[in-house]
């Protein structure tokens, strides 16, 4: 944006615009983008349903989850966007053909511990980092 435009907008009275040129308000963005916005989706991996109960002792499964959705302008607060994602969005708006939108990806990951038998019937208890998506955001 330019200072000129910004000043113009600031001097304009705050009243609803007429015609089809009116852009959506932040509230409208929220409601319309809610379905496609970047967010965490539930995905449960069941070791039992994979037929692995003979070698995985615990857990029976785990809520792995995944991130999916659009990282479109404006990046709402709930998206947990990084500062760079905001820059990425702006550059994308200027050059949508060549610059992609920010990615919807995990921002907070957690570990799970898995207890299982190996081929020799020895038992392994191992902590696997970054197995559970706790939060998603735009990067």
């Amino acid at each position: 944006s330019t200072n000129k435009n910004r000043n113009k907008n600031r001097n304009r009275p705050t009243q609803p615009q007429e015609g089809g040129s009116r852009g959506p308000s932040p509230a409208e963005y929220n409601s319309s983008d809610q379905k496609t916005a970047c967010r965490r989706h539930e995905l449960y991996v069941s070791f039992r349903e994979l037929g692995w109960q003979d070698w995985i002792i615990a857990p029976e499964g785990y809520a792995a989850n995944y991130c999916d959705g659009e990282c479109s302008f404006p990046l709402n607060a709930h998206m947990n966007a990084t500062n760079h994602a905001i820059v990425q969005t702006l550059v994308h708006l200027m050059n949508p053909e060549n610059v992609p939108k920010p990615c919807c990806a995990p921002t907070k990951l957690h570990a799970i511990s898995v207890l299982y038998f190996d081929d020799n019937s020895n038992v392994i208890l191992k902590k696997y980092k970054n197995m559970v998506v706790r939060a998603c955001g735009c990067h």
Partner: protein
Amino acid sequence: DGNNEVHPSFIHRRLRTHEKREMQKEILSILGLPHRPRPHLSHGKYNSAPLFMLDLYNTISSEEKNEVEGMLEQYQSMYTTQGPPLATYQENAFLNDADMVMSFVNLVEDDRELSPHRRHHKEFKFNLSQIPEGEAVTASEFRLYKECVSRTFRNETLLLNVYQVVQEHPNREADLFLLESRRLWAAEEGWLEFDITATSNLWVMSPHNNMGLQIRVETSSGRSISSKEAGLVGRDGALEKQPFMVAFFKVSEVHIRTAR
């Protein structure tokens, strides 16, 4: 999540065979396993080692739930309300520092005929060949269960020696290295833990040196007795009291998954 409860909004769909295979491949890759393990569980699924490991798993899981908060409370309640758990406080300390814990079953099926001098010696062997690369042993224990034998030995003390087999010879006795000597009350009952960290480090670094362990028990008068007489549980004893080895590991290398 912790209770394995499935959210009502969760869409449940049974995977097709090829989808299931793909999913299995992906999860195995995440777990860093080249293939799905096929354990031979002829001696019962939950003998002492899996039970001990399950105890450690439950400790970790409840810690993950409570995070750091309330951990002390949990330890305190474990000791005051339920008595000491299978895993001791020391093991919990090892556990906090470990990236991986592994238990090993004793591979010796039948007692070999040893020399008359060593006829009461008992052998133990463990397969440490399947330890993932880059894992370094931080602590290791050999665990034996002792039952009370006060009727036979009254108030006597017994001496239990644990040896590492250093060298085996075809025509003479194996060379042994004494790892620990421990005095036990005949009436004592419970798990005995022996620190074998240095030995298992050697076995991991040079597997050809892994010739197992031997134990020997003698009375206070120096008479050698069998481990069964001493109350040490062997293969013919209860499944949940079988001897085993446990090792705690720390990852020393960063594993990068290759893209498929």
